[in-house]
Every structure is written in C-alpha cells, then in structure tokens.
C-alpha cells in the first residue's frame, strides 16, 4: 500500500506543479496584482534601488551585498542571543553561540543549506525567528538567480531585471502566501505553535519531564517549502512535535518538493515550450522514482547482521519512527536529498548502507530537481553540457533555445560543474587522513568514510542533512563546512549568472532542419545519461569505499 501512496504523491506533485509553475512566472513578471499594496509598500521601503533594470553584473552586486547583510545580521543575533528578547525557548540562561559556530550557522542558513552544528533546543525564540527569516530569504535568493537565467535564455537583451524587485515579488507572491496556508494545514493536523516556553509534565512513572515547545508550525511550513531543512529541534522531522503523524509526514514531503518541481514548468513558460519542460521534468522524475525504489528496497532488506547475530527480524528500525513506516521514511530520505532540503524523519547515519548511499548520490548529482533555483540552474548547466556533447557527436553547432553555445558558455558551465566535486572530494580526503577531521567520526571503518563524504557533499550541495554521528561542532568542521557551503553556493551561482549575461546578448537563431532539438525525449535521455556518467565517473570511487563496500560487508556478515 505504501507504493500506492508514493505513486499518488507523485501524481499530486505533478498535478500541483504544472499550474504553480505558471503562477511563479506570472508573479516574477509582474502580472499579479492581488498583493499589490504589500508589494509596493516593501519596494518603497527599499527605496530607489528597486527601480529600473540591471545588467547581470549590477544584479550580481546587489545580490551578493544583500546576502552579506543577511548573513552578518544573523551572525550578530546568534552571538548576542542572551541579551535579546524572547528567551523563553531555552529557559532563563541561554548562552551565545561561539564565533565559529555562529559563522557556520549564519552561512548555513543564508546559503539555504541548514546544516546544523548546534541543536535547536539551545536557541532562544528570537534567534530561531532570525533563522526563520533566512528560511524565507534564502530560497527566494536562489529562485531569483534561476529566473534571471531563464530571462537570459529567451530574447536578446542587455538587462535581466531588478534584484530587489524580484526578491520582493518572490516573498510576497510565492513564499509568504504558500507558507501561511501550509502552516494552517499543519496546525490543523496537530503541530504546536506557541511562545509559552517549555511545559513541565509530571509523568505517570513519577518523573519530571521538560517538553520543549515553540512556534513550530510556522517554522516547519517555511522550512520545508523553502527546501531549507533546518530542524526546530535536534531530531528534526523525526521529532514527534515537528512531525506527529503519517499525514503530516506526507504533507511535509509534498511541501519540500512542490516549488522546485514547479520551477521546471516555470522554465517551460519562459522558454515558451511546454514540451521542453515536460522532457526535463519527465527524465528527472524517472531518476527520482528510481532513487525512491533503491532506498525502499535497501530498507526492506534491512540489516541481516542483527538477524544473524541476535535472531530478531532484519527489518531495521534503528533511528526510524514507527508512525512513518518504512515506505514513507524511504520517500522522505530520497526527497530531502533530491530537493536538497536536508530535513530528516529518520537518522540517516543508522539507515542500511544503500539507503544512506542513494541520498548521498542524489546530493552528488545535485540535479534531481534540487533546491530553490539552485537545482534548476544545475539542470540547465547539464543541459548546456549535453548540448555541447551531443553537438560534437552528431557534428552540429551546439545551440539551446536558439542561442549558440560557444567557448565562453561551455567554459563557464564546466567551471560551475567542476566546483561541486572539488568541494566534496578535496576536503573529504584531507579530513579522512588528518586526525583533525577523522577524530570527529562516530562509526569507525567504512561507515566513517561515508560520514565524512556525506558531510562535505551535504555542505557543497547546500542540502543540510547529515550522518549526525559525525561531531561537526569542532573548529575544523565549523570552518571547513562553512567555507564549502559558501563556495558551493556563490561560486557556481556567479559562473551561472555570468553565463546568463553572455547568453542574454546573443541573438536568437531560428530553428532549421539542421538544429539539434532539445525538446525531444531522445535529447532528454541523452541528458540523463550525461548527468549519470559525469556523476558516476567523479564519485564512484568515493561511493564504493563508503556505502557500497559497507553494504557488501553487511550482506556478507549475515551468515556469521
């Protein structure tokens, strides 16, 4: 029955994504009026900077300065939380985050990663709200860059929009209304939302139990919708107050997948080609479904060592919650890495090796829909590389949507593509051989390799989920993961924005008989294989040392 549920979820996802994709296009192109007064109020508050059009360089400058401001102010709040209001969240004596931890946290939330080297229970409500602000802003900041890229691909132009106007439209028309609706749905399904501080219970066995609470429904709504993924509490969506029932579980999965899926159809709208959107969405959906099947299969296979040694059933429940069931835990783990959300409803570190390994692969590929905007940029980056590769194979000039792909474009796309594996593999290699990194490993051996690879992959992909056994709150990991998150986010975005600037100036060549069409299913499959081959060639050694080897050890150990 779980399989039927997953199929229904995928159908509902596509059913909502198609019209929502159109809605996003309308919102960003100023065709929506229903929140006009709020939009105008915000634009007036920002001032003259929100008027007029910007070239890609001007757009990037505004973008990067806004990101820096958001990050620094959040850093300050995390450092100053003992002196700020709303301290009820953590009792009377909250402590400030240290400089490196606060750096890691602020970077993590502005880059849409939400990697957490702290546990949510240690923050005041004020600090949590400051992070929630970034949960609104960071997905919008990703989304606007993708929109700029779309604009550059269609039509010949010098300017690509106005950063502040795009940002305000994203918040006002997309994130704010959708998060409000989502929060009310979650409230109706039993999530708490209070500023009353912890409750004290006198349990039936005569103990005192402190139950931490907070504005959880408001947080979870935007956490999921914005593919943020940071947990209000340490256990994230495994925590029963964050995700109390199978209903909230599937809705939280839907929330995190909806906008990034829609964005493919928004692209189709910009490109004036519904077929192009369906081809890209279709092949990505196949990859996503295959991933769900692998994780589900691995979890059903379970842990034969426990069966072999102890005689209990092999179906591992370590780190899982009963109410979510195996099927929807598999779906969650796949969705949270496909969409680079990073929230978890089970502890990834304790899942069977392949059930933790496939999510790792999805973060390495970074193109299975992906996070807000960033995912779509990666998809288009691979489309450009595919156009180039396919063009070489059949001997045609590579072009995409009538724009010629030339030396500058392919160079920038390749730079954007190479950042990801370098950011993952280089620091992983260092951390595994030096005790400064290796001493943080909880599960030694093959599994420990996966813990470290997973951490840097999660940071580079701006995902935020973790093999949480790894102790990340050390100066080394706070700094290194922080830097990987920053470079992973901004360097690839800069390359893609420069690519957009270069494409925007090109005139559109009308399609002829000789044009290599990109809106066909055969192109879609070639694209998928390019993604898989590049991913496999780059990451197979790391995957085979980690999850694949551990799976073989586990399967072999069953007969002991």
């Amino acid at each position, binding site marked *: *029955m779980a399989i039927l549920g997953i199929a229904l979820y995928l159908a509902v996802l596509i059913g909502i994504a198609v019209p929502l994709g159109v809605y996003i296009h309308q919102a960003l192109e100023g065709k929506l009026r229903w929140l006009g007064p709020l939009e105008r109020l915000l634009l007036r508050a*920002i001032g*003259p*900077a929100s008027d007029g059009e910007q070239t890609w360089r001007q757009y990037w*400058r*505004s973008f990067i300065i806004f990101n*820096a401001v958001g990050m620094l102010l959040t850093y300050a709040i995390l450092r100053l939380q003992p002196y700020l209001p709303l301290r009820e969240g953590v009792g009377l004596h909250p402590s400030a985050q240290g400089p490196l931890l606060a750096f890691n946290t602020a970077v993590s939330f502005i880059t849409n990663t939400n990697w957490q080297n702290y546990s949510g*229970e240690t923050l005041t409500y004020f600090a949590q*709200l*400051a992070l929630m*602000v970034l949960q*609104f802003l960071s997905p919008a900041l990703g989304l606007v860059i993708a929109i700029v890229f779309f604009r550059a691909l269609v039509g010949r132009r010098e300017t690509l929009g106005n950063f502040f106007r795009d940002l305000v439209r994203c*918040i006002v028309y997309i994130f704010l209304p959708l998060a*409000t609706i989502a929060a*009310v749905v979650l409230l109706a399904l*039993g*999530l*708490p*939302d*209070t500023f009353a501080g912890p*409750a004290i*219970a*006198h*349990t*039936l*066995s005569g103990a005192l139990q402190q*139950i931490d*609470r907070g504005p959880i*429904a*408001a947080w979870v709504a935007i956490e999921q919708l914005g593919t943020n993924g940071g947990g209000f509490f*340490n*256990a994230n969506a*495994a*925590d029963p107050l964050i995700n109390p029932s*199978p209903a909230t*579980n599937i809705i939280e999965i839907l929330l995190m997948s909806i906008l990034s899926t829609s964005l493919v159809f928004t692209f189709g709208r910009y490109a004036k080609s519904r077929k192009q959107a369906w081809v890209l969405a279709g092949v990505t959906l196949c990859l996503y479904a295959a991933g769900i099947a692998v994780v589900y299969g691995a979890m059903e296979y379970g842990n034969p060592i426990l069966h072999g*040694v*102890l*005689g*209990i059933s092999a179906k591992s*429940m*370590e*780190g*899982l*919650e*009963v109410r979510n*069931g*195996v099927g929807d835990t598999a779906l969650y783990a796949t969705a949270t890495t496909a969409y680079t959300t990073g929230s*978890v*409803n089970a*502890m990834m570190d*304790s899942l*069977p090796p392949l059930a933790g390994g496939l999510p790792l692969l999805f973060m390495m590929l970074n193109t299975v829909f992906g996070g807000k905007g960033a995912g779509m940029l990666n998809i288009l980056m691979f489309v450009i590389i595919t156009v180039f590769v396919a063009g070489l194979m059949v001997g045609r000039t590579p072009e995409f949507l009538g724009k010629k792909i030339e030396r500058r474009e392919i160079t920038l796309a390749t730079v954007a593509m190479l950042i990801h594996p370098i950011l993952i593999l280089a620091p992983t290699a260092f951390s595994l051989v030096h005790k400064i990194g290796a001493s943080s490993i*909880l*599960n030694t051996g093959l*599994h420990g390799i*996966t*813990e470290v690879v997973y951490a840097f992959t999660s940071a580079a992909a701006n995902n935020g989920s973790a093999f949480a*056994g790894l102790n990340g709150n050390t100066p080394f990991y706070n700094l290194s993961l922080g830097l990987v998150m920053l470079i992973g986010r901004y360097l690839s975005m800069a390359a893609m924005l420069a690519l957009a600037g270069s494409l925007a100036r090109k005139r559109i060549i009308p399609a002829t008989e000789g044009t290599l069409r990109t809106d066909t299913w055969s192109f879609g499959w070639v694209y998928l294989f390019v993604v898989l081959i590049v991913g496999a060639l780059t990451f197979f050694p790391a995957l085979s040392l980690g999850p694949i080897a551990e799976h073989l*050890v586990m399967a072999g150990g069953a007969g002991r």
Partner: protein
Amino acid sequence: MSVAANLWASVRGYVVLALLCGGIYSLVVWGVAQGFFSATANGSLIVQHGQVIGSRWIEQGWSGPEWFHGRPSATTPTPYNAANSGATNLGPTNPALIKEVEDNLSQYTHEGIAAADVPPDLVESSGSGLDPFISPASALVQVPIVAQARHLPPAQLRALVARYTQKAWLGMYGAPGVNVLQLNLALGRLVSGG
C-alpha cells in the same frame, strides 16, 4: 548603483522583510494556532487532576512490568529527554549497535519471549528518542507480562491494544502504531475501574 547605495538598500530590505517574515507571519500563525487549535498548539498536553502528565506526542519512559513499554531512547543526558531530542546514530555495521540492541533485547528474552518474536522497533532506538508509538506487534508481545503483573485477563488487554491501534493514514501513508501513553492511561483507568 554604488556599493554604498546597495548596502543601504539591502539593510532596509532585510529589515522590512524580516519584520514581515519573522514578525508578522509568525504572529499570524501564532494567532490562528491559539485562536482555533489551542489544545494541540500548546503541545497536545494531557491533564489529569489538574496536573500536566505529559504530551500525547512524547514518549515518557516506563518502568516495571505493570506498564506497556515504549521504544528505547538515546537522548542525552537521560533517556526520554524532551528538551534534547536525538538518536544513537550508530551505523548498521557498528558492533556497538549489536551490543545496544542485545542489551535491550535481554529485557524481553528474560521474560521467556523468543528473540524472533520481539519486533525490531521495541529493541532498536527511535530517531527522536521520543517516539510515542510502538508497532501493534510490540504491544501484543508485552500483553502476557502486563497481564500477569496486573492480574488481568490477556484477552482484555489485547482488546485494549486493538482499540488504541492507529491505522495508516488513508490506508496508504505511514504504518500502524499504538500510542503508549494513551494505552497506559487506558490501562490505568481499567485497573481503577474508572
């Protein structure tokens, strides 16, 4: 536009957007929560004789054979710490995992239950350390122990378990579970004749 102009616009933009997203949005959701869903919005607390005895969603830990037990908890510094949720994070091939499960299992094998009959969720730690549910099989396997300690007919307890078993949502989502706190509260009422 100069860097200074961008900076000034960014600061103003951050402040108004923070007021909107962190302030007004969270106040509106809080207002709806307290206005329409006040029982669940405050943590689904269960009150008995004027005293909060727990939350419907939070496992609290049980000792002795007269209660149904929940899943093992790995929260620190004490188990079932609802102020610091968390898991063991032990990997599948870690010998420490086998040790942990073996320890938890001995509690049931000492009562004469075969290891093969103990469902994994009862002896393997949950993700949050606060999982309020156990599988129906995990409740049923405890029936003989509780029945003996309480001098109650097992059939009556099995009926109780069946009554408190929550099915998968729409028959498709999640897995059936028994809320341990609600089951034990019902057990308490059964004994006191209430």
